[in-house]
């Protein structure tokens, strides 16, 4: 039951973008790019969450080095993000795009996933569920924001609101809906996050 609950918690109630504010530069800057561009960040979000949990729980904690988490979490997620991107682009035989934000762990999205996984998981299966929830949550946000942007482009809105401000306001409204959706899901489920 927990394995089903955790992805919903990480994907909706703890969505890295909508609820925690990470990834604004990543998501808003890719509004004009093809949907395929979300594969590398979503893979990095998943792998950062899962492998950080493995590293801190199975390698550093048994060695008594768990206290290093605050210092090592950022270097670890950046390393995983950069390596994931390189691997995916090498496999697909494409050049890494110049606008890539992998060096900032996809504007913190991978960090948020790793942090949530470390706090919410009590086993490797939980870790996988939370990381997967974060990754799917990011993909859903990317799709929604792309659709919103396509509509906003054709609407007669003031020039000063075009682009980032209108996307932020739209994100706020989506965040509000997602909060209420999460609360409803948890109420039906009979669980409190």
């Amino acid at each position: 039951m927990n394995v089903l609950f955790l992805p919903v918690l990480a994907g909706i109630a703890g969505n890295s973008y909508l609820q925690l504010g990470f990834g604004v530069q990543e998501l808003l800057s890719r509004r004009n790019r093809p949907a395929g561009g979300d594969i590398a960040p979503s893979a990095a979000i998943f792998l950062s969450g899962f492998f950080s949990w493995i590293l801190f729980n199975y390698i550093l904690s048994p060695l008594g080095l768990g206290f290093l988490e605050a210092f090592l979490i950022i270097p670890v997620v950046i390393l995983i993000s950069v390596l994931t991107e390189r691997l995916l682009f090498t496999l697909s035989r494409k050049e890494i795009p110049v606008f890539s934000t992998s060096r900032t762990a996809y504007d913190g999205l991978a960090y948020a996933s790793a942090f949530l996984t470390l706090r919410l998981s009590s086993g490797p299966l939980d870790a996988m569920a939370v990381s997967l929830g974060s990754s799917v949550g990011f993909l859903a946000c990317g799709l929604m924001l792309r659709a919103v942007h396509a509509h906003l482009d054709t609407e007669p809105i003031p020039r000063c609101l075009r682009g980032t401000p209108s996307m932020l306001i739209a994100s706020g409204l989506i965040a509000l809906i997602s909060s209420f959706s999460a609360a409803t899901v948890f109420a039906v489920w009979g669980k409190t996050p």
Partner: protein
Amino acid sequence: MKIDKNAGFFWGSDGHLSSLSNFVLLFAVTSRMAHAILISLVVFLVFTITSLVMKASAILVPRRHDFFIRVLIVSAFTAVASRLFSIFWPITVRDCAFYLGAIPLCYLSGSFNLRCESKSPLAALILSIKDTLVFSALAFALALVREPFGYGAISVPGPEGVIEFFGLNAVTNVGARFASAGAGAFILIGYLVALYRKIRFRLYGKPLCGENE
């Protein structure tokens, strides 16, 4: 069109409201003034010390590994600063732990550290002080709007959690309290960016919706 002199810090393309480089901190910690104070102090310490150390050790650091050394240095200073402040304000530091961890990413994602590269250590130090002061002013301004609506008070960090001042019991409206939630932050910052663009256009003649904005 007016001359764009001194537009670098706030009104330039590197400004906090143009590039949204520290958005996550403005989004998260401005729901409480106590959190904004803590994060501003840590950002001030980490950004200034890191830029100074990076400048001073520029000869020793191989260019090829420059980025990862910068990551390690900024992460180490953030961890030390968090530990230092947890002596005085343990509960506030614990509440902000998630966003304290994001400070190195804000340092790396901003163009601030790149601008420091071409400058002398003293100039880099002054630049980092100015940059962090601008960020702090923005964070305090947002917290002054969000916290009274959300919590009906203004708070400062204390040894036993937050200390609240000016309790406003009048703010009981759920709609008003929404300003302190994440959704409210998105909308508030969205309108703030629009206002910023309007003023920037009046002052410097920059386009209302520039490229990549």
